[in-house]
């Protein structure tokens, strides 16, 4: 369950969002996305016609508040025993679509030899991890439906370490609110602890039996069939446990933070 603190933790969400947008603006490829930052269009419906920028800001603020409220509702609805449906190998979507805020040719190429996973925040053991150590832990796999915030879905086959096993191994404070992720492609996101501990939440190291390919997030991706695609970070470089809201790349621009399905 999400406790009732996060809203209080973010009293000045609007100004934080503004800052984030300034920082992020150069990274946003599609100008249509930026259009939202200033304007709201309502086409033939005249209910908001003649709005000034101030009124747009107020509408944006109100919508953000409702989105935060929806985070709480989703935390409350979330059932740690509810499992996402699983599928047979024959139902895999081939090829599984590549999706990121950049084209596939820009996906980071990471050299395993030089790679370490950083672990920080509210954990007992902050020692960095090598890929081999993760591969030596108990492995599990799943064939589940990846649902994108855009609406499309695709069935994929991921394998790796159950994330709850990993959190136990590093001595994470499982009473903390958030687990955050920083990625090699500049992406970042964060999730609630109940989802982090869900039995289908996987620190994925493979895709369809092969080492996770570059386009799907080498060296590792957090795979959660209980959350939308943008909540599943790829190319993870650092994991941290915290009680202060870490936000996320898309979440800071307006996507719902909980993003659960």
């Amino acid at each position, binding site marked *: 369950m999400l406790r009732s603190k996060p809203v209080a933790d973010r009293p000045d969400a609007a100004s934080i969002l503004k800052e984030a947008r300034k920082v992020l603006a150069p990274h946003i490829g599609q100008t249509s996305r930026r259009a939202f930052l200033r304007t709201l269009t309502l*086409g033939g419906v005249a209910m908001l016609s003649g709005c000034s920028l101030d009124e747009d800001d107020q509408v944006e603020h109100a919508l953000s508040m409702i989105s935060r409220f929806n985070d709480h509702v989703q935390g409350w609805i979330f059932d740690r025993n509810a499992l996402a449906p699983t599928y047979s190998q024959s139902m895999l979507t081939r090829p599984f679509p590549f999706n990121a805020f950049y084209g596939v040719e820009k996906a980071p190429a990471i050299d395993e030899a030089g790679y370490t996973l950083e672990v920080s925040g509210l954990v007992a053991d902050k020692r960095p991890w090598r890929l081999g150590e993760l591969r030596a832990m108990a492995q599990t796999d799943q064939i589940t439906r990846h649902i994108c*915030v855009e609406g499309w879905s695709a069935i994929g086959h991921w394998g790796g370490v159950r994330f709850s096993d990993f959190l136990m191994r590093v001595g994470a404070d499982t009473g903390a609110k958030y687990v955050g992720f920083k990625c090699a492609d500049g992406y970042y996101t964060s999730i609630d602890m109940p989802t982090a501990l869900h039995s289908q939440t996987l620190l994925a190291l493979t895709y369809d039996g092969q080492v996770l390919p570059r386009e799907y997030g080498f060296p590792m991706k957090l795979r959660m069939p209980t959350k939308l695609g943008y909540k599943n970070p790829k190319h993870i470089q650092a994991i941290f446990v915290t009680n202060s809201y870490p936000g996320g790349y*898309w979440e800071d621009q307006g996507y719902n933070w909980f993003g659960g399905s």
Partner: protein
Amino acid sequence: MSSFPATVSRTDPEPHGGAIHPRWLRLTHWLNALAVTIMTTSGWRIYDAAPFFDFTFPRGMTLGGWLGGALQWHFAGMWLLVGNGLLYLTLNLFSGRLFRRFFPLSPQGVLGDVWKALRGRLAHDDPRHYNQVQRAAYLFAMLDLIVLVASGLVLWKSVQFGLLRELLGGYEAARRIHFVAMALLVGFVGVHLVMVALVPRTLLSMIRGR
């Protein structure tokens, strides 16, 4: 009222002091119109992000500016749609209005009234009395909105509402159901607006109650 004394005394058992539509009905009607407008126009923008037919909705007709904005509108509007819808259904059911206004209803009755309407013989002299076509159309709108909310719940929380997901045939089936139900509702609204244009005093009675 004075213009229809005979029909009023014949068909209206409702002690509303002359109101065709009680205040709660008018309020929930207009809130529903607002909610449906928000949900439809933001929903079109969400559909456009990953269309499954060979067309997209023109950007100018949509609400939200970009996908993230449309999603914010959609998941805010849902509270108005559901909260107001539950209020409407509760009051409609417990006041007895639902049964008084919408039943009896039969396929023969609907076809008979359609036939009358096509020949220009369907009387509108008593606005308290819904003909069989109106009854069918308004009940359809209620059921269609229930289907929209149910399929919407599956799209929003397909894992948490697993039973509902299976009943609707899975996530991808729920997407199609949601879309078709939207299209049917838009069709209803289109016919509804034409009818209001043909009988403008129905608009006044939905605003003033009389």
